[in-house]
């Protein structure tokens, strides 16, 4: 395709805007946030990355994975186990991407080459995360350890070393530094995905979402493309899991639970399927809403979960396309700019 940078193009402007906001947050974050808020922001960056992974495979690859939390958890556990054994965080960070990506490739091989239909794929991936949940919960005994790292069952692994400067295990990163690392990784993942989606591979992935049969008629092996896209999404989810663990210094089997699996779907649905910024906004908005609701008392008897659920249902009914597409439609309606055809992201 002809991918020239056109500043009149709405998508290019959007990309520049997103990049500017991210860079502003990167440089200004530690200055404008106090320590408590900064720690919360790091957590939000981790979940935004998880939402981004789901936004990619569902919104662009058309793969509705109900168990994206499995890769988040595998990434987290891979980091925890590796860093406890190695005492240094650089290789564990890489493993947190590679292990879930490799597992997703294996799982994807059986699902995509086995021609599993969309609904069964959702069920299988959900079953996978629940199997991990059940298995890790049952690993309390002393016999369940990998090297020096005990899995600790439902109690989870605590005192997990956070990030250190590469090659200097005795020089841990301070919260400011962890924020910079997390933010830079989020920016790299976001722009990396944008680049990937503009590449030949990315366009084929989108084409497969649009019409799998026609993609095959053109000679593309859709099974292979889906497997790779699924694996890329899993690697990103694993990286998010690593950030989560390194910030919390703790992980337990709840990362595999149904609650997180469902939340990821919600983030993407609320933010907008078929976009990359939308899922990040969705995760940010829903978590902030959830935190705010946690501090409220509704007439003294209304359950927070009930109010949270009701808000989500109303939102999905009122704004079915999600946050980003709706904001974009409003912008197009009230701003004198032409919509470039053929672009959704």
């Amino acid at each position, binding site marked *: 395709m002809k991918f020239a940078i056109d500043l009149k193009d709405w998508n290019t402007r959007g990309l520049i805007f997103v990049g500017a906001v991210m860079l502003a947050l990167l440089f200004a974050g530690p200055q404008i946030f106090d320590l408590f808020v900064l720690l919360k922001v790091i957590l939000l960056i981790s979940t935004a990355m998880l939402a981004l992974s789901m936004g990619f495979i569902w919104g662009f690859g058309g793969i509705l994975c109900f168990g994206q939390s499995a890769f988040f958890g595998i990434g987290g556990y891979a980091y925890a186990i590796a860093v406890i054994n190695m005492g240094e965080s650089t290789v564990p960070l890489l493993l947190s991407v590679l292990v879930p990506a490799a597992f997703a490739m294996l799982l994807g091989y059986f699902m995509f080459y086995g021609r599993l239909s969309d609904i069964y794929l959702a069920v299988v991936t959900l079953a996978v995360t629940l199997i991990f949940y059940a298995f890790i919960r049952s690993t309390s005994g002393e016999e369940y350890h990998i090297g020096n790292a005990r899995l600790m069952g439902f109690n989870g692994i605590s005192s997990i070393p956070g990030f250190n400067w590469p090659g200097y295990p005795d020089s841990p990163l301070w919260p400011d530094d962890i924020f910079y690392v997390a933010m830079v990784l989020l920016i790299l993942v976001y722009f990396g995905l944008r680049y990937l989606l503009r590449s030949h591979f990315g366009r*084929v992935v*989108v084409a497969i979402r649009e019409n799998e049969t026609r993609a095959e008629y*053109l000679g593309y092996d859709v099974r292979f493309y889906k497997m790779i896209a699924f694996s890329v999404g899993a690697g990103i989810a694993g990286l998010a899991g690593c950030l989560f663990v390194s910030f919390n210094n703790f992980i337990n089997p709840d990362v595999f639970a149904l609650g997180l699996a469902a939340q990821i779907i919600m983030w993407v649905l609320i933010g907008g399927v078929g976009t990359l910024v939308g899922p990040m906004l969705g995760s940010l908005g829903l978590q902030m809403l959830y935190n705010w609701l946690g501090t409220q008392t509704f007439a003294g008897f209304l359950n927070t979960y009930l109010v949270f659920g009701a808000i989500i249902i109303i939102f999905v009914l009122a704004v079915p396309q999600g946050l980003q597409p709706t904001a974009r439609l409003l912008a197009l309606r009230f701003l004198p700019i032409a919509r470039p055809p053929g672009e959704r992201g």
Partner: protein
Amino acid sequence: MTESRPPILETHGLTMRFGGVVAVNDVDFSMAEGELRCLIGPNGAGKTTFFRCLTHQYKPTGGRVIYRGVDITGSHTHQIARRGIGIKTQVPSVFDGLDVRENIWLSARRHHNDRESNRVVDEILERIGLTAVANRLVGQLAHGERQGVELGIVLTGDPDLILLDEPTAGMTHEEVHRTTEMIREINRTASLIVVEHDMQFIKAIANRVTVFVQGAILVEDTMENVLKNQEVRDVYLGKREVA
């Protein structure tokens, strides 16, 4: 003339069953390199199912498909496409959410590098007369234009054998005329199998016609002889008993 040329496609005892229904029944079919063959027959005769068996959209329950001497019966759809078989389906199979240019580009990029692909796309857009709507989403186009996009996608792959399933369905008179010319032009470099119901269109393009009835080949002859054939007339007028 085509008789002396080697066969580009053959099927031997090709059969496709859906439970108790036999959609394609023990079909022995052969066509020569460079030939333009038309398949006709009443609705439900098995023409489209036959196409789907050739491209492995359906896995045949029996028989073999031979393309240029190679058994492709067990090959996957994308492998068959890579061997040089292109298909245009009855209902346009295109990427509705992408623009016209990208639809063609995806086909071009499979065969060429990025720079060359852009050149090929411009050439094909000009050829199918859709340059003016190159940046529009395919889902927003009229049916005839969508047919044109699909044809463009197929031509971009430069296949040696093209399967066209009702290429003129839903087209205006002018579009049919243009498609007729285009098919003649395509046939200079590629073999074609065309499924159609429009007899005027078939008369305009056909050399040899195969008539399908109830999943099997009833007769295979020139268009002139087929039109004179009493059995064919009976089938089309509904006189022949349905099993």
